[in-house]
């Protein structure tokens, strides 16, 4: 359980994180989504006590991180890949962390195995690929077998095998009842592995919801999409029945105000051939763009939109 309350971080006149409040619950994978520079890493660094909040608090399992008796055994932390001394081997790095908690060699070997680093564990980290560095970060986070994991961009730089590996790992950890909190700027990735999503933009909370709820709320969610040989005739009939339609291609309509069954029945009554018919499911990406579009309206600025577009 991670609780963040009114968390704020200012650097001079810049506010990197602005009054953030959210809770990350156990037993689920919670994604932390936002464009680069939105304040994700800063928030995570404040949670684990590396950066001091300008205001507000962050607790893990009810305690300030700095007050935890055995941090590695309560919270597994993976920060960006540059948190390992390049002159150290993976084994040396993990042993250095393990010794601070009296964790034995056997556990170090175990997490090296879990991360698939056996063949390179005795090589200096400076020569590692980004993917290997990420695996080492995950191994370090798992070292104390903690009930809570905080992972900053763990998917970055992994090959497809690695992506699949970490997705399964996170799922297993959450199903095991652990709290899993990971950041990403890749919406597709979070859509694949997260149960809940905390969305921030420019340091502010934009949403904190179930992935499904968030996606269902998108503007296009629930639209019926129909492809037909006679789009104009069908559109006329549907409009007359009270629905609104929009032609998205010469032979394709998007219909709102009517479900797919009713659209199909209307087509049948008209004798129009239906080539495809279905309900549009929103995507996390759409949900995200909707959210940030609102933020732009409140701010009255185009900058956020530009950030979002750069992100895509």
């Amino acid at each position: 359980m991670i609780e963040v309350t009114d968390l704020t971080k200012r650097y001079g006149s810049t506010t990197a994180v602005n009054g953030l409040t959210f809770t990350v619950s156990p037993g689920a994978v919670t994604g932390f989504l936002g464009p680069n520079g939105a304040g994700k890493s800063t928030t995570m660094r404040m949670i684990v006590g590396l950066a001091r909040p300008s205001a507000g608090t962050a607790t893990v399992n009810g305690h300030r991180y700095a007050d935890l008796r055995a941090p590695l055994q309560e919270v597994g932390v993976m920060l960006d890949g540059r948190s390992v001394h390049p002159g150290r081997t993976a084994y040396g790095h993990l042993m250095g962390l393990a010794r601070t908690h009296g964790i034995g060699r056997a556990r170090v070997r175990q997490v090296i195995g879990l991360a698939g680093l056996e063949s390179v564990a005795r090589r200096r980290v400076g020569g590692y690929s980004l993917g290997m560095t990420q695996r080492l970060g995950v191994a370090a986070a798992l070292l104390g077998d903690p009930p809570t994991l905080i992972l900053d961009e763990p998917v970055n730089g992994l090959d497809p095998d690695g992506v699949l590996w970490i997705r399964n790992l996170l799922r297993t950890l959450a199903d095991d009842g652990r709290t899993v909190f990971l950041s990403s700027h890749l919406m597709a990735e979070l859509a694949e592995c997260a149960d809940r999503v905390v969305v921030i933009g420019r340091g502010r909370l934009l949403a904190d919801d179930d992935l499904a709820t968030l996606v269902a709320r998108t503007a296009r969610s629930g639209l019926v999409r129909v492809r037909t040989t006679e789009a104009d005739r069908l559109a006329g009939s549907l409009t007359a029945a009270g629905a609104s339609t929009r032609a998205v291609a010469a032979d394709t309509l998007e219909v709102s105000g009517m479900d797919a069954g009713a659209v199909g029945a209307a087509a049948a009554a008209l004798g129009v051939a239906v080539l495809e018919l279905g309900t549009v499911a929103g995507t996390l990406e759409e949900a995200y763009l909707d959210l940030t579009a609102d933020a732009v309206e409140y701010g009255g600025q185009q900058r956020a939109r530009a950030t979002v577009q750069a992100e895509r």
Partner: protein
Amino acid sequence: MTAVVAATGLPSSAGVHLGRVLRSEWGKSWGLRSTRWAVAATVAINASMALLMSLDSLVGAEGYGNSLAYVVAGNFLFAQLPLLVYGALMGAGEFSTGSAASTLSAVPRRGLVLLAKTLTAAGTAAVAAIAAVVVSAAILLVGPLGPDLHVALDDGQSVRILVGGAVTLVLLAVLALGVGALLRRPLVAIAVMFALGMSELALIGADAVAQWLPGHALLAVTALNEFVDLVASMGTTVVGPWGSVGVLGAWALLALLLAGARLRRSDV
């Protein structure tokens, strides 16, 4: 692959304390090439300088005397350099590489980390100093000069030179660590420490000022009695050889306190 297997090797008593953090820092330090090189270089430089000095015709009853202690420890001024680099890297390296984030998230009590690093640097410098003395002495004693050298360790001069010299090397490494942790930039810290460590050479004849600087102790505490008496007779200094070690200790403590204050207050 099973993602979560039953964890083995977790401690029976959970917690972070000085003993554990010290074992971690000691292992981390000796796991780096730079540490092993620094210790080896200290020994090699000291042995080479001792060997050179033994070829000097001034060693012997007619010149500098035949104190073995002076021949093996009288060149710590040069042997200190690798240890200054080591100390500065120990203090600043984790910040320049970013690994401080790993270390401090495992041990959020930052003072504990600084203390463990200080003890590690002190221990490593002590190992290097003792090894440098023993290796240099061994080489000299089997050499042509061996039979003439005075090896008795029970006179005040030998004890001052050997023990004082080793303590001074340890304090210099600790000062370098403090400066490194304070500045967080290895190269700047190394430059500062070289300037401080060698300042004595630039300040010869200006003892009134030099005695209060951290670079004074090494020459003062490893000097022969005759030189100590000569300096004292000039009346420009108030701190003796041991006093200068105390001055260095105060500088080291100040650097550690400032580093500790920065570590406590600033983000990593």
